[in-house]
Every structure is written in C-alpha cells, then in structure tokens.
C-alpha cells in the first residue's frame, strides 16, 4: 500500500535542522553582546580598582578627579552628569508631556499630520548636530541673556537644555502612546459627571496613564544620562565639582570621549578608568531601564 511506500514517509530533513540551529545561534549572538559588555566592563574596572593609585572608597566619595595627581574621585563627573540630565528633564518633561497631551487630546488629524513628522525629524537628527546647536546657538543665547561674565563659554546649562530638546520627541511620542491607551470609557464617564475637558485630562486621563508616563520619563532620563556628543562639545573639558550650571564641568560620557579620543595607551590607569566609568554609567542606565520596564508591565496588566 501507499503508506508503506518509502516515498511517502516523513523524511528527516537535515538541512531544516541546520537552518534552525543557525538561526538559533544568531539569536544567541545578542546574548553574547550583553555578556561581552559585562565581562569587558567588569574586567577592566577590576584592573582599575586593583591599581595601587586607586581605592574604591576614594572613587565613590572623592571630590577630585585628577588622574595626573592620582586623584580618582568620581563625584565631579557624576555631579555634572546629573546637572545636565536634570536640566534636560526640566525642559523635556513638561514640554514633551504637554505636546503629548495636545497630540492625544486636542489636535485635529490635520495638526497631527504636521506634528508627527516634525517630531520624527527631530528624533532622526544625529546627536552631533544637537551638540553643534548647543555650541553655536544655545551658549551664545544664554550668554547674551545672563551676561558674558556669568555664563562661561562651555557650560552645563547649555548642554542640558539642548539634551532636553533632544529627548523631547522621544518623551512626546511615548507619552502620547501612554495617554492614548487610556480607555475611552474613563473619559466619557468623567464628561458624564460634568467634568470639563481639562479636568478630565488632569484628574482622570493623566492619573490613569501615570505608570506609562513615569516609565517614559525614566527612559528619557536614562537617555539623557548616556548622551555623549552634546556634552562633549558644549559642557566643557575638565572635571569640576560645581553646582553652578553656567560653569564648565565634564560629565562621565564627556570624560570617556575625551580620554579615548586622544592616544591613550593600553593598561594605563587612564585607559582602565574609562571602563570603570563606563561600568558606573551602565549600572545607572540599566537600573533606570529596568525600573521603567517594571512600571510599564504593571501598567499593561491594568488595562488588558
């Protein structure tokens, strides 16, 4: 009978298995990247901290970062990183949120058709162009507003504001998604109770979208902390512990770029120090991303 005919039996298709295995290995490759990042950062950081000139406590609490005289306190770099990021958030979060609210609740289809491409173009512009903008536009603007003596040529305020503009499209787009995914019934219920549009937005829609919005803000903060070219061009070279945003101060990323851009020799403290700082940067951004992800999973459980 036909069943017994060897032609009809299921063949073992060897090449199908090979293809699946190859695809699986490709998928594993991304895991390898993560492992690579962790191994490299930890290994080089270990070398950095095992250098006799460096101690962990001094690294975490020191107020001076001057490799020339063996002082490795990372507080000045961390401080500058947070100064620029906080300024960026002060500009980016309110404007991004308001743009998102406008897009989600108020804008006509025609208006959205104009605004969405504007945001996409803003998001697609390379960060180096934003750095140029900070240097050639924002800094002169701040200097003419607040005085040439008050604002230094390189300063964290200019870099921070421009990073705020840089993360704005990201905040606006993600926040709009969060706001739009609030069920329509909630709005209708609020209207039925006599709420005005703005009351509905602020007292019903925003609280309902809060977890998605916080996830967005954390991700934006993480992006701002990791941003490099704007601070490398506009924030200044030379770590300095200062609370004044109009003074020059070097951020973690700015320092990494400056040191690696020169000819740094392998196995020197300088070389290892950029990996130690890279590790710090990774820990901060990874934590922010993780918390952001956790918050948004909670959010999804609420409405599905």
């Amino acid at each position, binding site marked *: 009978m036909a069943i017994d005919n060897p032609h009809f039996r299921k063949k073992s*298709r060897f090449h199908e298995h090979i293809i699946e295995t190859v695809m699986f290995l490709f998928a594993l490759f991304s895991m390898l990247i993560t492992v690579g990042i962790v191994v490299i950062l930890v290994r080089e950081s270990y070398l950095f901290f095992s250098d006799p000139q460096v101690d962990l406590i001094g690294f975490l609490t020191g107020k001076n970062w001057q490799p020339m005289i063996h002082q490795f306190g990372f507080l000045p770099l961390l401080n500058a990183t947070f100064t620029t990021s906080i300024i960026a958030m002060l500009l980016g979060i309110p404007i991004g949120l308001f743009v998102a609210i406008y897009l989600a609740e108020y804008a006509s289809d025609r208006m959205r058709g104009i605004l969405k491409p504007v945001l996409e173009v803003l998001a697609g512009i390379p960060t180096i162009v934003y750095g140029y903008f900070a240097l050639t536009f924002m800094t002169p603007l701040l200097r003419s507003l607040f005085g040439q003596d008050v604002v230094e040529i390189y300063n964290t305020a200019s870099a921070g504001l421009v990073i705020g503009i840089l993360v704005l499209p990201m905040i606006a787009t993600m926040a709009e998604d969060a706001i739009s995914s609030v069920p329509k019934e909630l709005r209708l219920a609020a209207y039925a109770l006599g709420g005005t549009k703005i009351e509905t937005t602020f007292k019903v829609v925003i609280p309902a979208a809060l977890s998605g919005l916080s996830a967005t803000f954390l991700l934006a903060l993480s992006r701002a902390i*990791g941003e490099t070219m704007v601070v490398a061009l506009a924030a200044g070279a030379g770590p300095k512990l200062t609370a004044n945003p109009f003074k020059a101060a070097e951020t973690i990323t700015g320092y990494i770029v400056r040191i690696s851009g020169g000819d740094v020799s392998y196995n020197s403290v300088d070389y290892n120090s950029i990996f130690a700082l890279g590790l710090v940067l990774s820990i901060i951004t990874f934590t922010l991303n993780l918390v952001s992800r956790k918050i948004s999973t909670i959010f999804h459980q609420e409405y599905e």
Partner: protein
Amino acid sequence: MQNSVSFGSEENLLSMMERRRKAGVVWQAVFLFSTSLAILFLILLLFSVIDSTFGFAAIRYEKKPSELMVGKSQLSDFSRQELEETAKTHLSSGILRRVEYEKPIADRTDKDLIGILEQYVLQPSVLRTWGLWASLTKQGEINEYLFDQGDAVLTFKSWLTIDFLFADQSANPLYAGIRTAMLGSLWIILITFLFAFPIGVGSAIYLEEYAKPTRLTRLLQLNIFNLSAVPSIIYGLLGLAVFVRAMETFTSGSLFSGVADTTANGRTILSGGLTLGLLVLPIIIINTQEALKAVPDSLRMSSYGIGATKWQTIWGQVLPVSIDRILTGTILALSRALGETAPLVVIGASTFISVDPSGIFSKFTTLPIQIYQWSARPQGAYRNVAGAAIIALLILLMALNSSAIILRDKLSKKKRMEA
C-alpha cells in the same frame, strides 16, 4: 479648579463655571505653546546650521595678483601663458613637484590653474566670518571691522560647495572638504550592513518563527530590549576592547599579511563597522520582528497545508511578503549608524586623516566625526565648515530615508500587482 461642588447662589455657580472654563482655555494655550516650541526648536536647529553655512568672510591674501603680474588685478585676467609662467615661478618647488606629479601643468585647465595659484601663491586666510543673519543685519559692524583690518577682502561665501564635497581635509578652512569623511562613512555603513543584517534578520526569524515560549526565549527578548537602551558610548567601549584591542591582528589586517596598514593598529573601518553593527543589531532585530508579526498566520497555515516545510514556508511565503518592511526597518537602523559619533570616537577614529580609505583595513574618519572635530576647534571659520558638513550629512540621511520610503512603496505596489 475646585474639588468640592457647592450649590450656592447662582452668582457663585456662574463664577465657578467661568473659572473652570478659563482654566481650560489657559491650559489649552499652554499645550499649544509647548507644541509651537517643539516646532520652533526644529526651526532654530536648522536655522543655526544654515546660518553658519552662508555668510560674509573677511579674507586676507598674502599676495595680490598685481604683485605677480603688473597691471592685472584678478587671476582670471591672466592669459594662459601667464598662468603657467606664474605657476612655475611662484610655486614652491615641493608643491610644484606635487602638482606636476598629479597632472602636468600644461595639461591642466585654466580654472584648475587659477585654483592652484590662489591656494598656494595668493594664500588666502580667513580673518573672521559672519553668519547669514549677521551678514544681513550687521553691515555697519562688518564694514567697521574691515576698515580696521585694512587690506582684508570681504566675500560672501557659501561654505557648502561642490569643491567642498570633493576636497580632502586641509589645515586651511577655505580648502577643507569632506570627501575622505564621506567615503569613510559609506565604508562603515557597508560593513555595518553586511554584519548586522544577516544576524539581525536571522535572530528575528528564530524568535518569531521557531522559538517556543520558554524561559530562554523570554530572556533573549528581554535582552534585546535592554540592549536597545544601552548608551551608544558603551558600545564604543566594547568595540575598543574587543575589536580594536583583542582582535587587533584580525581587524588591522595583519592576519592577512601584505594588505595591512601598519599604523592603523586595529582602529580600522572593519572595527568601526563591526562596532556600529553591534549597536544597530537590536534595532534591526526589533524592526524585523515587527515585520514578521505583521504577516498573517493564515499564510503560514496555507503553506503548511500544501505540504511545505517550515523553512520553505519562511523562505517562500513569509519573507517575500515582509521584505519591504524588513528593508525599511534596516535602512532606518543604518541611518542611525550613519549619524553615530560617540562609539567611533571611543574606538579611536578621531584623528586627522587626509587619505581616502582604500579598504576595510584602512584608518578612517566619518562625517559625524569630522563635524565633531571641526566644531571643537576654536577658530571661527571651522564652525562654518562644520555647518556645511552638517548640511551634507542631513542631506545624506534624507536620501537614505527617502530611499527607504520609495523602496517600500515600490515593493508593496509590486506585491499588489501580483496579488
């Protein structure tokens, strides 16, 4: 806005309603204002770039044409013979030899010769530049400056010219160009594509078509999302330690002896391309997954139904209908790579290079790196050059993105016709 609603007199009620209405109007104005701010930022950004690309420049020449040939005030007034003569007598012997070596003077066009004479004999140097806005509004200040300088010449200059696109780097901003950087960028993008596209699409196919919902799959997925949020500078550190340092014999080409550029020591196009490949890999995977998710399951089922194997289904049915989206996603990822600066600076690409890259083992510079270097220089004229380079970069990005859109439209039209 008040939380408690009190039904007082009609007057109270009306004033409360009025307050609530006003709050709405005020906030709507705030939203509209924020939105216009976002648009304003984009306009300002573009304006600041265009502003420095065009404008007046005060230029001082070391020699005047009249000093070379009596009675002639411009090089273009020179006759052919006079041009050749001046070139032979006034060019320094080293430059003359180089010029003759590239192309004999007798074979060069007049325009070519004028260019050479201007650059090496008249030796212009930029004293000061003004942006487009200042050029149009601050005539008085500019004239005053010129008066103080005496012999400086004022020319309205577009820093973005055809020559700018095809010239290599130069110590004189007037003659600096982006050819080397553009070639570097294109090489890097090519390596990035060749490296990241197969791996990215392969990973996505595994995750969407083969993987069962196990812990490992979830871990892989989570990992990809995490990678896409890692700051780009971290990829630079990874590339520095792995491609530049650990794999130096491979990435510098000394493994394949003979072709190696010995001075590159691992800081080559190959290293740069691979580093950016790692950077865009998560983006390509995510975009391809989205494309595969959009393919209806009924298509797969009908394919299995007529006896196709899994791979036959993927290769013959799933990929053909999703290839337009996959390619669009990939091009968008590549345009991200084209604009990346930080990882390449970290792996050490940021050096003065005036030689065109000749292969994957060459040292390189890219357009964004060039912009970074020019912007960071204190001399004002380099800012203008950087502005011109930014316009070139933005045009390149626009071309890439519109090619993605055209490709998508074309492929989907073809698909409709077949259907």
